[in-house]
């Protein structure tokens, strides 16, 4: 009942107590039916002194026809308990005729005959039996849920036995039990939801429960009746009473039940899959006797329940598995069709929890962690994920006691005593973590717990359900409900589906990328061909206009000649536009000719060129720091700097114009290595914030054509293309009216 008592060596001897309960008589016989031992209460029932029976043949007590009947009963029942097989016997004693229910069974060397007094001398008829069981069986079959089934059974058994309390214990895998169904007198405290440690019903007791179909103790407090002699005279060993209905009760068991206020106990073991699945236990505060008919009906019911239990458990598991499967297929359907995969994963939140019956969940996609339900803090989860990354090598990992392997988890045991980790990607930090609280958090105890505390005179907690509960709490500390195989399967299925979806998406992306690349190439070559072909008629227009001006000028008046000259100017403008298109398409198509370039040399050339082409202009080009050597296409980078510098002077109304070129070291990560950020800063007119994006568009101008020396509006589009070809990025920062800074990484 408690670990202290469990340690007592006597506990292994409960099947050989050397005594029986006093509500019947036990007679041990040799195989030749000579009387070896009798219970000392034999005189009370049969009016014969024990010593007068020992070593006598059974025929001393029974007539030949009873002996024959008993023998045939013995062969039919062999060693199994005899709850169904009572033989009605009538014995003539000194006190007159007495009626008994006799049962008989045999172990290796001994035949054990048990007699219980009864009031009827007739066998129970089928109709009597039918009236006891009623339509319980058909009702049992109509329930589908295990809990409904168990509730029905306890209430029917309570009707049948008239005990004050009937409850069902269920054992978990560790052997600990809990009360899962209860029917009771309304004034009693409910035990529903109570948990017991495994030690409450120790292994030897479990073994006995597994062997016999019933345990019947009508009066716990009755004086037990010893066997005479104590040991079997043939074997000199205590008599094995494992299968004896009358076997006396262990002292601890008595104390335990006395402390609960129980005087009568009736237990029906529930066997499923050849294991002791649970017990149906009936309690009564006063001694309570059951007729053999009622007990037979109960035993029968117990067997029906055991049989049906399998169906219900299988159905329940099957239903649960189906529920998980259904959830999962819905889940996968939504996430595979959703545009935003992550969003679909997280919403609705409950679905992600239900898929493995967890209370909390964390979805980790690289550095983005989303918490759902009852979870540890974000910081704790982050540390936990790091730990998982370093420790766990499988795609699926689960534990029902995280604090045992990850001691920091003790701090958040209320949320994550149980952990299920699903790794979605080996390359990216993609994880789903599910949490279960410490099991104690999940216990739903129907009764008022304090009412169950009982103290002994010295103030310590008495052996009682409450004490059991405390012991159990200690045992299950820092553990959660275990993860079921079907839940783990559900998680793995989810992972496979997600990997499939991600792969599909990657495939799709790759396809789109390829398509995009192709269409980009096509666009570039289209632009190239188109601009070439456009040039030809344009040249025709241009040349013919010139011929008109040269050879036919006399045919036009001044206005006509003006139109002709405008026509020529327009063809020239169109030509420059086509040149830009050509240049851009070339930039898109041509291979980069990368080499290591000293930017100081490159810029010196550019500065010289600027000086030479604008000898009269007042401008300054500053390079405050030594520039690095970088790998790039020098012709393109020359064009890039030239474009940016010439823009800086073009859009500048200061009397003293300047441009500063430099770089910021390693501020931006590109391919995991810090890249320098180059800048070209000027004291020009600046760019308003809402224009800072569109200036990079092709042919986009912010000013009228005549202003700031004209231009096609292509310089920055070309600059952007050059930077993009190098795999970099260009952007602008500006203080409108005071200057701009163009920044880029390559």
């Amino acid at each position, binding site marked *: 009942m408690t670990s202290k008592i469990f340690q007592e060596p006597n506990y292994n001897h409960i099947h050989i107590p050397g005594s029986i309960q006093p509500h019947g008589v036990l007679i041990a016989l040799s195989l030749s039916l000579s009387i070896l031992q009798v219970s000392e209460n034999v005189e009370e029932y049969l009016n014969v002194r024990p010593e007068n029976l020992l070593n006598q043949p059974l025929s001393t007590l029974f007539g030949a026809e009873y002996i024959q009947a008993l023998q045939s009963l013995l062969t039919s029942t062999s060693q199994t308990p005899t709850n169904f097989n009572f033989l009605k016997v009538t014995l003539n004693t000194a006190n007159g005729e007495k009626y008994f229910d006799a049962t008989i069974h045999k172990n290796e060397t001994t035949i054990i005959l048990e007699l219980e007094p009864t009031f009827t001398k007739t066998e129970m008829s089928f109709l009597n039996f039918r009236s006891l069981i009623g339509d319980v069986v058909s009702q049992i079959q109509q329930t589908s849920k295990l809990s409904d089934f168990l509730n029905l059974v306890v209430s029917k058994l309570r009707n049948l036995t008239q005990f004050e309390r009937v409850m069902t214990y269920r054992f978990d895998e560790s052997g600990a039990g809990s009360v899962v169904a209860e029917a009771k007198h309304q004034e009693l405290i409910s035990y529903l939801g109570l948990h017991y440690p495994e030690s409450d019903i120790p292994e030897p007791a479990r073994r006995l429960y597994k062997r016999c179909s019933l345990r019947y103790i009508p009066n716990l407090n009755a004086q037990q009746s010893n066997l005479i002699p104590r040991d079997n005279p043939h074997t000199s060993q205590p008599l094995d009473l494992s299968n004896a209905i009358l076997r006396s009760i262990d002292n601890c068991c008595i104390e335990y039940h006395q402390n609960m206020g129980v005087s009568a106990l009736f237990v029906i073991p529930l066997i499923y899959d050849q294991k002791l699945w649970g017990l149906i236990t009936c309690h009564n505060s006063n001694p309570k006797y059951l007729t053999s008919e009622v007990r037979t009906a109960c035993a029968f019911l117990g067997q029906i329940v055991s049989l049906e239990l399998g169906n219900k458990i299988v159905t329940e598991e099957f239903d649960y598995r189906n529920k998980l499967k259904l959830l999962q297929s819905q889940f996968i359907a939504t996430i595979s069709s959703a545009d935003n995969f992550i969003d679909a994963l997280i919403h609705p939140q409950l679905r992600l929890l239900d898929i493995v019956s967890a209370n909390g969940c964390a979805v980790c996609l690289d550095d983005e962690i989303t918490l759902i339900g009852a979870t540890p803090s974000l910081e704790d989860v982050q540390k936990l994920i790091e730990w998982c990354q370093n420790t766990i090598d499988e795609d699926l990992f689960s534990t029902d006691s995280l604090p045992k392997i990850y001691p920091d988890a003790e701090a958040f045991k209320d949320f994550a005593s149980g952990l299920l980790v699903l790794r979605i990607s080996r390359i990216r930090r993609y994880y789903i973590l599910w949490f279960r609280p410490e099991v104690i958090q999940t216990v739903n105890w129907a009764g008022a717990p304090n009412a169950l505390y009982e103290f002994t005179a010295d103030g310590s907690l008495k052996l009682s359900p409450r004490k059991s509960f405390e012991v159990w709490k200690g045992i299950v500390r820092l553990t959660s409900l275990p993860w079921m195989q079907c839940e783990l399967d559900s998680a793995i299925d989810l992972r496979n589906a997600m990997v499939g979806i991600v792969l599909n998406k990657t495939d799709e992306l790759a396809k789109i990328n390829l398509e995009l690349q192709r269409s980009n190439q096509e666009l570039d070559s289209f632009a190239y061909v188109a601009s*070439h*072909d456009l*040039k*030809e*008629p*344009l*040249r*025709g227009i*241009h*040349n*013919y206009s*010139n*011929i008109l001006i040269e050879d036919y000028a006399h045919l036009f008046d001044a206005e006509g000649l003006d139109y002709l000259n405008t026509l*020529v100017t327009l*063809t*020239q403008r169109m*030509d420059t536009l086509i040149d830009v298109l050509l240049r851009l398409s*070339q930039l898109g198509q*041509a291979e980069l000719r990368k080499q290591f370039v000293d930017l100081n040399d490159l810029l010196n050339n550019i500065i010289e060129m600027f000086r030479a082409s604008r000898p009269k202009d007042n401008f300054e080009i500053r390079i405050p720091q030594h520039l690095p050597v970088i790998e790039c296409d020098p012709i393109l980078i020359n064009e890039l700097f030239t474009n940016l510098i010439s823009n800086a002077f073009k859009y500048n109304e200061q009397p003293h114009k300047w441009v500063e070129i430099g770089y910021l070291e390693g501020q931006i990560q590109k391919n995991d290595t810090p890249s320098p950020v180059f800048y070209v800063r000027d004291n020009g007119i600046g760019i308003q914030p809402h224009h800072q994006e569109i200036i990079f568009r092709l042919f986009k101008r912010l000013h009228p054509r005549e202003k700031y020396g004209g231009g096609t509006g292509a310089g920055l589009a070309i600059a952007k293309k050059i930077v993009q070809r190098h795999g970099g990025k260009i952007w602008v920062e500006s203080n409108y009216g005071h200057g701009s800074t163009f920044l880029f990484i390559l």
Partner: protein
Amino acid sequence: MIDAVQEPLLVVEDSNEDFRMLQRLMQRFEVKNPIYRCSDGDEVLNYLYHKGAYDNPRKAPRPSVILLDLNLPGVDGRYVLERIKQDITFREIPIVVFTTSSNPEDIELCYQKGANGYLIKPMDYKELHNIMRAFVNYWLEANVAPTIKY
């Protein structure tokens, strides 16, 4: 000096307008050389190999200079250049490429294939005038063409 009449210029040009401009400038420059014109790549090859419409060799005299546009319908100028320069009977004929393309790749490719000059067709009328003037001065007047073998 050999009579210019015996030094035909073959112009390969698909654009009628461009060809007309060229003729006009040639007239201005009083070029004496007979000018023959092919409009596409296949026609050039027929001209040189005396096939198709050019099966009469007298109608298609061996040119002493070829002015070759690159972007042509059908077989394009790059291919024509390669074919002529690979043929031992024609490879001595100077070929001057005359094209809108200023693409460095085109320029490099043409010289690699054996082009003897590369002129870019300018948009500007005056520039065109200057370039054609230079062509005539050098290739039709100053330069000595290889001796024609029959």
